[in-house]
């Protein structure tokens, strides 16, 4: 309860800071607009204001502060502008509309989920292989670890273009990038998890005369669950980033990444921010959902 209060305080402080930051960020554009509308601003003329500090301008033109929160294309949109845009593009629009954020979110989400499923499935399979085969462990595992230090996302534009040139397009190229990004965290986490039973537990199974197969299903797999869920949470966040970045280089027309890109081309800052918050909410929901599944699973298994 006290934590909740603390979190709310921090969030409130962030919102207040955000509103405060809007004034100096947007003041120059606002003053130009107001002057054009016939208002009296200090000092007059845009060239005179160009080299002045933003804070000085805010102090000299305090009447203009409310206007900095209501610009059409602000450098930094105010929180309520972003929330209004989010509301307008999610709830107020039909979800089939090209301007609906739900539609764009779904495009990105479907690629994310497909990629996540592929990446996790292959990752778990490889981890099982690594745990059971010494050759695979020794030859693949070092590369899996090294690959985590490489900015794999640099491959994204190439994967998309190459797949496009061989005739694969639509959801699959993005899903492949997502899969690639979620693959290695799952492999590394799952190998750790499958190896987490200690010698005592493995010996106990041996005294029960359990074979490798039984040892896997009855001990290793259950013991790996906490590790699996921890890496799944990392993996799904990485998948979402992969799907968003995968939409950038081809100039995709739909998806959250495409909204970001279009917004940055046309200077629609409110659109960028709302797409960003849409992506954040999506990520939060996905990670939260996995957290719920984790809680329920571990509780049923008696591990939490």
């Amino acid at each position, binding site marked *: 309860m006290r934590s909740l209060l603390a*979190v709310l305080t*921090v969030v409130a402080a962030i919102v207040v800071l955000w509103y405060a930051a809007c004034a100096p960020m947007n003041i120059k554009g606002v003053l130009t607009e107001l002057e054009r509308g016939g208002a009296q601003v200090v000092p007059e003329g845009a060239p005179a204001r160009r080299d002045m500090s933003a804070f000085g301008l805010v102090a000299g033109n305090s009447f203009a502060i409310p206007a900095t929160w209501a610009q059409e294309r602000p450098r930094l949109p105010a929180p309520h502008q972003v929330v209004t845009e989010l509301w307008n593009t999610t709830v107020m629009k039909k979800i089939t509309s090209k301007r609906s954020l739900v539609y764009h979110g779904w495009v990105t989400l479907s690629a994310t989920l497909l990629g996540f499923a592929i990446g996790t499935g292959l990752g778990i399979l490889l981890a099982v292989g690594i745990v059971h085969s010494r050759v695979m462990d020794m030859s693949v595992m070092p590369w899996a670890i090294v690959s985590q230090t490489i900015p794999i996302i640099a491959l994204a534009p190439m994967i998309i273009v190459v797949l496009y040139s061989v005739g694969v397009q639509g959801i699959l190229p993005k899903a492949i990038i997502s899969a690639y990004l979620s693959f290695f965290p799952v492999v590394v986490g799952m190998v750790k998890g499958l190896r987490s039973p200690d010698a005592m537990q493995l010996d106990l199974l041996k005294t029960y005369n359990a074979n490798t197969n039984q040892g896997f299903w009855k001990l290793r797999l259950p013991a790996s669950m906490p590790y699996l869920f921890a890496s799944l949470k990392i993996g799904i966040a990485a998948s979402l980033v992969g799907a968003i970045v995968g939409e950038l280089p081809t100039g995709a027309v739909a998806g959250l990444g495409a909204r970001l890109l279009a917004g940055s081309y046309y200077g629609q800052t409110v659109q960028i921010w709302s797409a960003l918050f849409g992506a954040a909410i999506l990520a939060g929901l996905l990670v939260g959902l996995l957290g719920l599944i984790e809680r329920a699973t571990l509780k049923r298994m008696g591990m939490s």
Partner: protein
Amino acid sequence: MTLVVLAFVLWAFGIWVNMRLASGPAARTRAGKLAVPVIFGVTILVMWELLVRGLGVSMVILPAPTLIAARFATSLPTLWADFAQTFVKGALSGYVMGCGAAVLTAVLIDRSDFLRRGLLPVGNFVAALPIVGTAPILVMWFGFDWQSKAAVVVVMVFFPMLVNTVAGLTQTSAMQRDLMRTYAAGYWQSFFKLRLPAAMPFIFNGLKISSTLALIGAIVAEFFGSPTLGMGFRISTSVGQLSLDMVWAEIVVAALAGTAFYGAVAMIEKAVTFWHPSQRS
């Protein structure tokens, strides 16, 4: 056709050698542990080369490793300029600023229990978000040059670093803190002599996570606009010109830079946290 057959023969041979090595006595030695992954990597490279040549795969889809190496060797000046722009100016400066700011913030937060309990969940939440998406905004604010890339990196590394440092600063036990009190140590004395060293494994964990994020941030930010220089710029324009050997050469640079960066941080970690059980094996 013979090249394709040769590729599979080589593949079988590589697996056979590795199996022998892994099940033999050599697997325990340091050389054996190094040889197996190297053989695996070389086998894949050679197979790649043979398959691309044997099947006549177009350059536009997948260039052969030798072509990539040739391109790498001939365009060293370009690659170096891109590396300096993206890695040194963008990623490294942002990394230093972001991690420094996060550690300072963590130290400030640490004095207030209320702030810590408020910021930690928020920080954890933000650390899981696709922060790369702030790139277009920051490019708009800070211009196309390296400043915007450094800004993206700062935003990306800040929260993972903050969460790790705050968690690390709570790692001392009541007994240890009491001991410092019996020594009549002040806040800063017990901070520098006890709590900061105890937090080091966590801080380095954050630094390692951030080292990967920094390079990703700097490269992706360049997709939103950059001067005609930089790894992300080169990748996106070379993809557009379908000169994939250049893209691969750039990816090799990114991989080398990422691995070296991570390795450097890990080495410093080894020197600083030599007392930690995970380093003493």
